[in-house]
């Protein structure tokens, strides 16, 4: 469970996140959605402590994030960031093995059991065949799957992902998110694609300029009345066989005024 309240962040003089509260509940997938520049990534970075809000607090399972050591925090939260790491000469297997770091003491080296965890996590994202390849030589989608495998290898109780479906083709977009769902850990995902959010998130937080516009269970938040003014695009919602789909049309064509 991650509870943030009253967190803020400003770049220069402009507040991007201003006094925001979010709660990610155990066993559920929380999606952070919103248009470009609404601060989805900034909020996620506040949640895992890469940014420290001067006001408010972030609690992980009841403990203040700022009171946890970096290693303790890494054991509770695994994060998939959008950092390429394209220059590294590590192989894929070594990259995934880095995820075991938070579980090893300073003088301890990764052992056979860690190797097995790494192998299992690579298999889970369907990337076993890449094990001996150089990470830098992978395509964007392959890298993304390897980074998710590394996060899984951390065996943390919370999983945070910043646009994990970037660079992935449609099949892997769904496979990765289905995987996240199946983990039954407490997950927070930044997503661009509202239809993916509709299908895979239990709860959503919709960010607009400066703060939370709507928060709640997915069907409540994905209301065209709420979304339309925030995204500036015409939205129709179809509920087909218990699943929810959104169709988009530019407002200017439908309504030239």
């Amino acid at each position, binding site marked *: 469970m991650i509870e943030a309240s009253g967190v803020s962040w400003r770049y220069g003089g402009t507040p991007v996140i201003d006094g925001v509260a979010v709660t990610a509940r155990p066993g559920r997938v929380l999606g952070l959605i919103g248009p470009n520049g609404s601060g989805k990534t900034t909020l996620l970075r506040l949640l*895992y*402590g*890469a940014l420290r809000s001067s006001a408010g607090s972030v609690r992980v399972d009841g403990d203040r994030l700022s009171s946890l*050591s*970096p*290693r*303790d*925090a*890494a*054991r509770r*939260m*695994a*994060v998939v*960031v959008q*950092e*390429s*790491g394209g*220059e*590294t*000469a*590590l*192989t894929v*297997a*070594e*990259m995934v*093995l*880095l*995820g075991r*770091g*938070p579980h*090893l003491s*300073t*003088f301890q*080296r*990764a052992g*056979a059991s860690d*190797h*097995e965890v*790494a*192998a*299992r996590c*690579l*298999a889970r994202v369907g990337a*076993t065949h890449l*094990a*001996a390849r*150089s990470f*830098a*030589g992978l395509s964007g989608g392959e890298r993304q799957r390897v980074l998710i495998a590394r*996060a899984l290898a*951390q065996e943390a109780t919370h999983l945070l992902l910043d646009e994990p479906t970037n660079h992935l083709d449609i099949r892997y977009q769904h496979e990765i998110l289905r995987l996240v769902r199946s983990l039954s850990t407490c997950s927070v995902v930044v997503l661009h694609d509202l239809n993916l959010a509709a299908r895979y998130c239990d709860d959503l937080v919709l960010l607009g300029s400066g703060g939370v516009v709507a928060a709640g269970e997915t069907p409540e938040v994905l209301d065209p009345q709420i979304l339309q003014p925030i995204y500036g695009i015409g939205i129709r919602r179809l509920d087909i066989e218990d699943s929810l789909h959104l169709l988009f049309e530019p407002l200017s064509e439908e309504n030239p005024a």
Partner: protein
Amino acid sequence: MGALVVTEVLGVQRRRTTTWLVVLTAALVVTGLIAVGTGAVGISPVTVARIIGHQLLHIGDVTWTPPEEAIVWQVRLPRVLLGILVGAGLAVCGVALQAMVRNVLADPYLLGINSGASSGAAAAILFGAGAGFGQYALSTSAFLGALAASLLVFLIARSGGRVTSIRLLLAGVAVGYALYATTSFLIFASGSAEGARSVMFWLLGSLGLARWDALLAVAAVVIGGTIAYLTVIGRSLDALAVGDETAHTLGIAPDRLRLRLLVVVSLCVGVLVSASGSIGFVGLVVPHLARRIVGAPHVRVVPVAALLGAILLVGADVIARVLLAPQEIPIGIITALVGTPFLLVLIKRLHGVSQ
């Protein structure tokens, strides 16, 4: 099946590293023995080994002359040992800096520490600075210069609160240029041609200061400690080399780690520059060589780079002593001449990989 493949991949890399460590250690011992035996008076490596054995453990019969023993024990062995230490130290500091600033062209002199040491050395040679330290005047003065340079870099890099890689780079370059100018000014102001030549010789690096003295002992402790430290924190270096955000999510505070590394590397480079001047290229080329043979994880790269650096520098010192014998040429000339083609090959290969 899949799991087996992955664990096999990881296991093979580990075994290959062990083999390399054994091979390189043997190569270093052989190179060292040959280096001690090479010079105006040639002594066979076997005799060298027996003299060292006799000195250390009092074993074996004496089949050599007292002058031979003096040459081996008093003159050449300390020099070869200093070469091993300096070569290993330069190589591992290069590894650390390349991880810290995430740039493959980083080397131990990036932080401007050698420029500080040069200014100190120039002050000692030209104006007799640090004369109170007796036989250690030159190295003490150089070390104080290195210390001043690293403090400056440290303060500039920290001025914004966070030690980012780009700030570290800029601080190092700025301090380096300023102190380089200081050294040139000192040479110009002294007006002594002889002094200028000595400073020049020192700037290009030499192992000529090596004796059984406190300097060698300090170098051994500091450089040995640095190698051990960098090997132990290898996993953190891996994460840092991938990126700050990655390091953070893996439970490593990147700024704090970089700060700690800055202190360790500054101390190590300060000591080795004080002992041997600025020997270029070893710290730049050897890390790449090490990565090429054992892969990227620093737990393996650091010890392998240390051994490679030691072998390379001891070899270069032999060439420096022999090439224009009886005149000795600065070792930095040799390492640059040998290092440049290496670097060009690496750049070509790097280009090939990224495409």
